[in-house]
């Protein structure tokens, strides 16, 4: 048996309070195609970053070729011949195909480097994707997204003098058409047959089942299954990803039963380019969950609903004022230089004026009352917002939305990285406010949170593929819909 290319022993990684990896053992052998699957937040991406050296593990060790590598990093990964095609494109859009190849290979320099780089990448593209139709002197930004992906993948397989032993492909087929995807996967089989190794991350389970020798299933930062592909089928994969239904059934939203979905719909939404298919509707008093894998159209839905507020009803119709609770606090949410009170009241300033000026008394009253209701832990609401912990900052953002006149509250996965205590406080508040007639559209990547919703819409590839009432919600059904195959 060949020696392993890389070996992880009990690797953990935590970001603040969030544990992304909770002790992962993984060994990659040459000549093996590994499939890696798991639901949102299972730790797949973190694991890949650890393998490529861009993230150092919190604890645990990395070994390779029998020797431990205590100072594992990008440089060592490169020397070991480990490459990665990241999900977000890592080409320079302002450079040509050949120039991007050069960026990866320090060896391509001196007279005639452009011609050599062009030949290198063109030959690789020819091998992997015959009829790719890409010239090596084309600027990347002029290529379609699919062709960019082809360049990115082909580039990862080019070699000058450095070794190439393991290529990690993170959702490589997400923007490739089916025949190109097949070309790629067929190529990886040839690569593996010649002694290379691949790790394929994909939400298309048939790709994993058809092209991998061994499948690793991750869940909650742990490897929960690691066996030959023969041991799995589609159903078993889904069950393993979701795990057996674990007891903690969140108290069902009481109001689900009591609030009869009556009256006109406050929000009607159909994804762009859809005429038939499922329409998302939300009435007063409803909590609507948006589920599915991250980045499959849920945030776009929220943004479109937000933009449509107050406009004329069309594909998206929204009745009533809207407020958004951002998930990415730092970029979309807080004003980092402002006080807690200012951060809470900014959405409501229109109603807090006295003449043309803001009334400090009324603004403070609003902020103070929400500090009490939502339980923001601070001695003084005039302290800077950054004096709060992450969870309390998020509470301030909730207070901003709930303290406003908005009838429809949009939530863009707002509980990311928030501690459980805060979560419970906010869940209670959401239920309370829904009972008073507010409508919530809640995008969440956490299964538990869906149990607070009256109805759940599952998104895949920018489409709504399923609508589940609360009573029919099971983790398995959500995963099943999220991972459903493109119809062959």
């Amino acid at each position, binding site marked *: 048996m060949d020696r392993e290319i890389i070996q992880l022993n009990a690797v953990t990684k935590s970001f603040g309070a969030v544990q992304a990896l909770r002790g992962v053992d993984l060994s990659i052998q040459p000549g093996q195609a590994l499939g890696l699957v798991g639901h949102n937040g299972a730790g797949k991406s973190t694991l890949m970053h650890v393998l490529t050296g861009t993230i150092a593990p919190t604890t645990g060790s990395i070994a390779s070729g029998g020797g431990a590598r205590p100072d594992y990093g990008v440089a060592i990964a490169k020397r070991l011949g480990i490459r990665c095609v990241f999900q977000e494109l890592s080409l*320079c859009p*302002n450079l040509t195909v050949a*120039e991007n190849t050069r960026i*990866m290979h320090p060896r391509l320099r001196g007279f005639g480097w452009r011609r050599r780089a062009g030949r290198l990448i063109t*030959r690789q593209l*020819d091998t992997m994707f015959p009829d790719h*139709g890409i010239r090596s*002197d084309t600027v990347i930004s*002029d290529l379609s997204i699919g062709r960019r992906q082809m360049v990115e993948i082909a580039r990862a397989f080019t070699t000058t003098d450095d070794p190439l032993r393991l290529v990690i492909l993170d959702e490589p087929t997400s923007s490739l058409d089916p025949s190109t995807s097949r070309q790629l996967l067929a190529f990886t089989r040839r690569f593996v047959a010649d002694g290379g190794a691949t790790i394929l991350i994909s939400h298309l389970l048939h790709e994993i089942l058809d092209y991998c020798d061994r499948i690793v299933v991750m869940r909650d930062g742990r490897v929960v299954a690691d066996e030959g592909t023969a041991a799995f089928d589609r159903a078993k994969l889904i069950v393993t990803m979701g795990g057996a239904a674990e007891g903690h059934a969140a108290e069902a939203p009481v109001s689900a039963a009591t609030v009869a979905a009556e009256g006109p719909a406050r929000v009607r939404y159909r994804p762009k380019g859809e005429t038939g298919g499922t329409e998302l509707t939300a009435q007063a008093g409803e909590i609507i969950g948006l589920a599915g894998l991250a980045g499959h159209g849920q945030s776009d839905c929220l943004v479109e609903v937000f933009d449509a507020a107050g406009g004329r009803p069309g594909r998206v119709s929204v009745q009533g004022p809207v407020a958004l609770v951002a998930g990415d606090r730092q970029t979309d949410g807080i004003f980092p230089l402002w006080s807690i009170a200012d951060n809470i009241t900014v959405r409501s300033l229109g109603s807090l004026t006295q003449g043309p000026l803001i009334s400090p008394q009324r603004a403070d009253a609003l902020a103070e009352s929400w500090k009490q209701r939502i339980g923001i832990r601070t001695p003084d609401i005039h302290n800077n917002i950054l004096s709060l912990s992450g969870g309390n900052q998020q509470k301030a953002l909730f207070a901003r939305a709930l303290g406003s006149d908005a009838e429809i509250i949009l939530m863009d996965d707002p509980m990311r990285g928030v501690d459980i205590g805060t979560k419970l406080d906010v869940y209670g508040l959401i239920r309370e406010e829904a009972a008073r007639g507010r409508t919530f559209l809640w995008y969440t990547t956490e299964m538990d949170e869906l149990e607070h919703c009256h109805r759940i819409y599952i998104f895949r590839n920018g489409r709504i593929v399923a609508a589940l009432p609360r009573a029919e919600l099971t983790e398995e059904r959500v995963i099943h819909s999220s991972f459903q195959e493109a119809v062959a």
Partner: protein
Amino acid sequence: MSGPAALAAEVRSPRPPRQFNARRLFRTALPALSLIIVLLAIRDFNPRAISYFGFNLMLNLAVPVALATVAQLCIITVSDLDLSIGNYVGFIACVTTTWLPTRPWLGAAVILGSIVVYGALGALVQLRQLPSIVVTLGMSFVWLGLALLIRPQPGGTAPSWLAGFMGVHVPFVPFPIVAAVVLAIVMHIVLMKTAFGAVLRGAGGNPAAVARSGWSLLRVKTTAYAMAGVLGSLSGLALVGVSSSAEANMADGYTLLSIAGAILGGAEFVGGRISPVGAVIGALTLQLAAVALNFFQLPELLPGFRIPPEWQVGAQGLILILILAVRALINRGEA
């Protein structure tokens, strides 16, 4: 063992044809077109200006401006902006007129030291993740202050070799045009053709990707800023060669002029999209546009009335807005 590399089999599909893109062509040709239009306008007002002697006069200051513009372009390449280049050029001019003729070693050492400082600024911007605008804005006051310390009053002398070089008479083609062509070609090769230039531009387009491939962004930024320092110093020398004396704020207009020239030439503020040839053409266009106004007459309204020279800067601004508006129109059609 043959290894995975052997997979690149000898299958060669035919090279796909280059796609003709009228928009892209137009956008690339826009700087040259605007230069031609300005030239035609000048010929219309004053045909005698289009001559060997006329160009030597009109493009008198074009060489230092073009050098400052390509210096700015080095910074724009890495998606930064330099607000100190004008005062830096003035500072170098003061150093040159004060020390180079009498104490050449001291003068040369100060200029080399300033280039090192420029490189260090790039390192500072990268290490501390500071906005380049803030750092260079601060430095612009530092350069101005140093220049005033060296030369509180206007004056000084240019080294004779420098004045001789800038006043050289090339047969048939005016010297400023020869210098501009050489500069454009050299910068095009360095930034667009070398393997090293590709990394610089890549760092402007997607720094994370460049870092992930194992390049040091610190080195990239330091290099880009040091290059700007070298070119800015050359600009200061050229300015002294033309004007033969110096004062501290003689080039303070160069900061905005260099940005305008680079952008006019097709560069984008962020994203590492640049065109060295376009930048040189942009600098020439702005220079000629200012001169053209001197010839411009309003015969119908006020016979004999000429537009006062104070309007030159305004005319440069209007041309910039006009050309950027045309480019925005082209880009919009593309999206």
